[in-house]
């Protein structure tokens, strides 16, 4: 019998439409293959700067997300009790009218009665613009409960951060050290980078209590005890300093290590940096021995010279730094037990970092000129790079830990050098060039400026006249002064408690707050549904927008159904969280590659429609007519400053980039170009960007800055010292007394380590274990479960238990355990895992689902055996008996301290389902089909 004749060249599709993925926060370019007007197949876009053709499991499963039975179909008005999930479908006109009837009186009387928080929003420059024009100070996205410590520590220390704002120099790095990471933060680029690094013979050190994913392919795994990363890093710094394996030339030229510090404890300026009359930082010039502005042409800053002025000794930051970290408390022996890493291993890692940074250093033959006018014939490479995100961020000592990591990078001279860590435009950008937070509310008027930003001292805090927090989340207050992304995890709790004040309407987008996106999930559900003595809801009104039947939908009074990512316009903007590469500025769009088959609207377009109905100033022309019809119109025609709009590419007649007039055809030009725009950085500008005159000039041309902004890295953060000074009693703006000691202790201007707060408040004997979650690579938060293909990969999330604990408790396969914290208990299935820190248990994040949500059957494993650790984590710390509500957050940034959780474990008989068993909610979309055989071309 002969072989069958095959058609080896079948038609692949009628058309390929190129847009941007939204299956996680990575924002890869995708080719959507269309057949008969339907989505037939999705693959990565080879030309796209982020993913260069590859695509992860989530992205490839986009077709199942786009067609998920959980999609909302029409606006919903609540008819049952809040939380029941009983709704009636209404028309859009009615939905918009209801929203306006609630919002307009608030705006006229007190705009701060609206709390508008967006979750996994990728349009923050737009949503914040809307909130600013509404006039409420209460706006933020989800950064505060995600990774603000990493972002803020990076920007305060080096004017840039990991992921969106920087990346390892993958082609040249030889040693890559990765600390705990959330997988969706730069997902495909890290995988691609690891592949390239390994191909080049480079090594990876993974520091993570759990050995999965990237840590599974790491050459060396450091199974550190959670919350001790900062101590481990400071021990590495101790070893490097002791051996003199630091880049002194780099520190002198490019950091504030040579800047003079007031060292008189009696001075009201103790610890502040010395400046000249123009406010320029002062260093001692080695050539003259005299003070000079740090950026003066030709100045050679000294790391050692001290300076007396008016009887006060000023020492360079370098003295303070060396003195601190040479202390024996940072020696490997002193930290080994606490970190769960042997002293020998810490020393070996330090030796390896030093060997690669200094013995494998190399020169690139690229001439460049620095901001002091000195021309360098070559660029020196130090091929050691680092990456981290959520793992070290989500602790109450996270900001200082993230700062410690950046200090380590800087001491090795490996930031913005070949082989090291590189910024992506619009970064580098000094703190001083970032906006400051604004909170001045005027009824009927816009807020006085952008909500979020970077404070530079007590004068920048968002406080009301009586000194209480101006924002509902208490961001930029004494409780967490440098909370650059807000504190979304505190909004519901504070609104419920009326602390600092009551609100009227809670308006949220893409944030599953009644389930996996809140701490204290059961408590949050109660706060959302609780009524006061008059029978009114304590949080009077809730508007929610989501594309899917998430757990949060049931808690809204009005639901505004969003589109899927293939049905919408979006812009991935340089004004927001860009998709640039170290060698290029880039931005991108989404566009409706298919039209919705349901009565849904893109949320951003709905915001435009609401703004138009209310006549919000930024959306209204002088004659009262509306500026924008929908979001696409805004993307094309909005200008932040003359010539600067949401999209940088194809401006003016289509040939201007960065700056240029509005181009009515701009979106079409993006579509023709594959959905994105990219502009490459010239070679001579490609490294040393904060100090490189060629880069600074390129950035001005691109519209990233209005003038060159060279700066030095802040190994010493003076802003933090200003808050300490206030806590010590200096200055007009004073913290409340109960916060003074904590500010003095934690806002140290040089990185420190202190134990996570929960550790100090619960007994280690009672709660001996740490409990963590991780994100599986094939799922994005709660979204993956509604995806028929992805839930077959990660449909279950047992609690993984390390060998010793497994054996001590006599666990066997199929057993269940009761896991308890100071706050609550859950009963869950367990599984053994050997590649795990011996004091840590963990599970996959957000696999557990509530019955009735996501169009799943009630007996789906996600609903019966899937669980959340969130029930064990409170948004407040255990009571200290002082009557105060202490947030379970970093005291500097307010970052949610998810990973501080301490637990105990106990074997129990298997129940019918996980405990607590939360009752089902009514589904507004019904259930999914019994079988799928998805082929567009029949």
């Amino acid at each position, binding site marked *: 019998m002969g072989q069958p004749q095959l058609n080896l060249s079948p038609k692949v599709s009628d058309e390929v439409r190129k847009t941007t993925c939204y299956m996680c926060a990575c924002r890869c370019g995708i080719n959507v293959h269309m057949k008969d007007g339907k989505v037939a197949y999705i693959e990565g876009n080879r030309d796209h700067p982020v993913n260069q053709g590859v695509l992860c499991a989530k992205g490839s499963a986009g077709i199942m997300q786009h067609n998920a039975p959980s999609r909302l179909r029409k606006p919903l008005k609540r008819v049952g009790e809040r939380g029941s999930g009983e709704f009636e479908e209404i028309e859009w006109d009615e939905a918009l009218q209801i929203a306006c009837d609630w919002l307009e009186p608030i705006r006229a009387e007190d705009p701060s009665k609206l709390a508008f928080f967006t979750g996994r929003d990728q349009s923050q420059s737009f949503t914040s613009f809307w909130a600013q024009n509404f006039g409420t100070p209460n706006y933020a996205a989800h950064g505060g409960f995600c990774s603000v410590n990493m972002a803020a520590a990076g920007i305060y220390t080096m004017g840039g951060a990991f992921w969106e704002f920087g990346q390892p120099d993958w082609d040249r790095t030889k040693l890559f050290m990765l600390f705990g990471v959330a997988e969706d933060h730069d997902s495909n680029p890290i995988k691609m980078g690891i592949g390239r690094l*390994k191909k080049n013979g480079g090594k990876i050190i993974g520091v993570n209590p759990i050995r999965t994913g990237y840590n599974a392919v790491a050459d060396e795994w450091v199974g550190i005890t959670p919350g001790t990363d900062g101590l481990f890093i400071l021990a590495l710094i101790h070893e490097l300093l002791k051996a003199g394996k630091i880049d002194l030339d780099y520190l002198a030229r490019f950091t504030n290590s040579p800047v003079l510090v007031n060292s008189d404890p009696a001075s009201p300026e103790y610890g502040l940096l010395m400046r000249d009359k123009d406010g320029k930082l002062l260093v001692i010039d080695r050539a003259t021995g005299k003070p000079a502005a740090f950026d003066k042409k030709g100045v050679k800053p000294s790391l050692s010279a001290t300076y007396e002025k008016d009887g006060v000794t000023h020492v360079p930051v370098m003295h303070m730094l060396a003195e601190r970290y040479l202390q024996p408390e940072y020696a490997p022996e002193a930290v080994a037990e606490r970190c769960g890493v042997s002293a020998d291993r810490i020393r070996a890692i330090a030796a390896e970092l030093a060997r690669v940074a200094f013995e494998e250093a190399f020169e690139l033959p690229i001439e460049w000129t620095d901001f002091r006018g000195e021309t360098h014939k070559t660029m020196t490479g130090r091929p050691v790079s680092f990456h981290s995100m959520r793992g070290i961020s989500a602790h109450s000592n996270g900001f200082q830990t993230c700062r410690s990591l950046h200090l380590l990078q800087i001491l090795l001279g490996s930031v913005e050098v070949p082989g090291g860590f590189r910024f992506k435009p619009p970064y580098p950008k000094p703190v001083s060039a970032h906006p400051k937070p604004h909170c001045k509310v005027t009824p009927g008027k816009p807020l006085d400026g952008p909500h979020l930003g970077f404070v530079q001292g007590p004068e920048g805090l968002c406080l009301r006249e009586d000194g209480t927090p101006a924002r509902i989340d208490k961001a930029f207050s004494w409780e967490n002064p440098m909370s650059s992304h807000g504190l979304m995890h505190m909004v519901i709790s504070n609104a419920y408690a009326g602390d600092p004040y009551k609100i009227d309407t809670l308006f949220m987008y893409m944030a599953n707050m009644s389930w996996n996106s809140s701490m204290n999930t059961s408590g949050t559900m109660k706060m959302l549904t609780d009524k006061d003595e008059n029978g009114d809801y304590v949080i009077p009104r809730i508007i929610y927008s989501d594309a899917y039947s998430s757990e949060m939908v049931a808690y809204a009074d009005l639901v505004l159904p969003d589109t899927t990512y293939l049905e919408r316009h979006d812009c991935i903007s340089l004004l927001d969280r860009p998709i640039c590469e170290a060698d290029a500025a880039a931005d991108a769009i989404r566009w409706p590659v298919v039209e919705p088959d349901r009565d849904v609207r893109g949320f951003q377009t709905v915001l435009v429609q609401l703004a138009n109905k209310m006549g919000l100033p930024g959306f209204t022309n002088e004659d009262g007519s509306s500026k924008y019809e929908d979001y696409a119109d805004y993307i094309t025609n909005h200008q932040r400053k003359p010539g600067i709009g949401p999209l940088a590419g194809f401006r003016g007649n289509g040939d201007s980039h960065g700056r240029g007039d509005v181009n009515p055809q701009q979106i079409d030009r993006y579509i023709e170009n594959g959905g994105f725009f990219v502009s490459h950085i010239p070679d001579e500008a490609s490294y040393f960007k904060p100090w490189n005159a060629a880069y600074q000039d390129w950035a001005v041309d691109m519209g990233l800055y209005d003038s060159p902004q060279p700066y030095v890295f802040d190994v010493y953060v003076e802003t933090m010292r200003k808050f300490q000074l206030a806590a010590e009693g200096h200055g007009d703006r004073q913290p409340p007394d109960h916060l003074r000691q904590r500010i003095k202790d934690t806002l140290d201007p040089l990185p420190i380590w202190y134990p996570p707060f929960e550790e100090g408040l619960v007994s280690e004997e009672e709660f001996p274990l740490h409990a963590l979650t991780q994100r599986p690579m094939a799922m994005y938060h709660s979204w993956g479960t509604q995806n028929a293909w992805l839930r077959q990969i990660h449909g279950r999330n047992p609690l993984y238990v390390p060998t010793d604990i497994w054996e001590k408790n006599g666990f066997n396969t199929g057993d269940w355990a009761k896991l308890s914290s100071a706050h609550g208990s859950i009963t869950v299935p367990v599984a053994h895992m050997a590649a795990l820190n011996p004091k840590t248990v963990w599970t996959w994040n957000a696999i557990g689902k509530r019955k009735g949500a996501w169009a799943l059957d009630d007996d789906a494993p996600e609903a019966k055996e899937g669980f959340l650790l969130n029930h064990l984590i409170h948004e407040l710390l255990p009571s200290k008996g002082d009557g105060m509500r202490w947030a379970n957050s970093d005291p500097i940034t307010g970052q949610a301290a998810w990973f501080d959780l301490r637990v105990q474990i106990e074997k129990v008989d298997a129940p019918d389902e996980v405990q607590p068993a939360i009752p089902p909610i009514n589904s507004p979309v019904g259930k999914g089909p019994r*079988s799928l055989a998805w082929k567009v071309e029949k």
Partner: protein
Amino acid sequence: MTTLPESTDKKLGLVIDLDTCVGCHACVISCKGWNTENYGAPLSDQDPYGADPVGTFLNRVHSFEVQPEDKPAQLIHFPKSCLHCDDAPCVTVCPTGASYKRAEDGIVLVNEDSCIGCGLCAWACPYGAREMDGEEKVMKKCTLCVDRIYNENLPEEDRVPSCVRTCPAGARHFGDLGDPNSAVSVLVEERGGIDLMPEQGTKPVNKYLPPRLKDDIFYQAPEPLAPVVAEAKGFVGWLDKMLDKV
């Protein structure tokens, strides 16, 4: 019973790097997407939103813990699909001739028109690499994307299996393992590529590159860094000695 070709002109197959595979399942889903829309019956899913979702996949990733005695435990991600064996028992066992190995490139395929869904081939395959589709009741297996690799409607660079095109870590390679000079054969040679379960005598074409030695350098107790000054002199001595260097 069905006969195998005496030899094939090429031996097309995959080389999978177990040192680099991070276990992300990108290949699994990309394969599902392409092969649902293309060759033969779609890869169906039963109870896709219910208690026991079970679908057809041509490629799956399994994860195994390895526990060396003197080192930390390791996790190995192991992608598995049809290995397009030279001596494919799934072909010879087929009662209808539906299972066959192509003479020109060695790809093992199922002709769905003649497949009676008896399942003998799946029993014969020692790797568990074939799956009966729950909807169509025909045997499904990796086609090495035979409808991509020669497809003139695709740009040349895309004429590779979808799992290879999508793999973010670059852990999957495609080529002619019958040509000792091909890039994949060179890679197998350099990295000591291995056959899966050679004792089964199936002569698999696909190869696996083993993980490199892990957790090694730091257990060899390398020389610690030498201090700049003896401890007794402390900070002042360190400062003098260090800052002289600038």
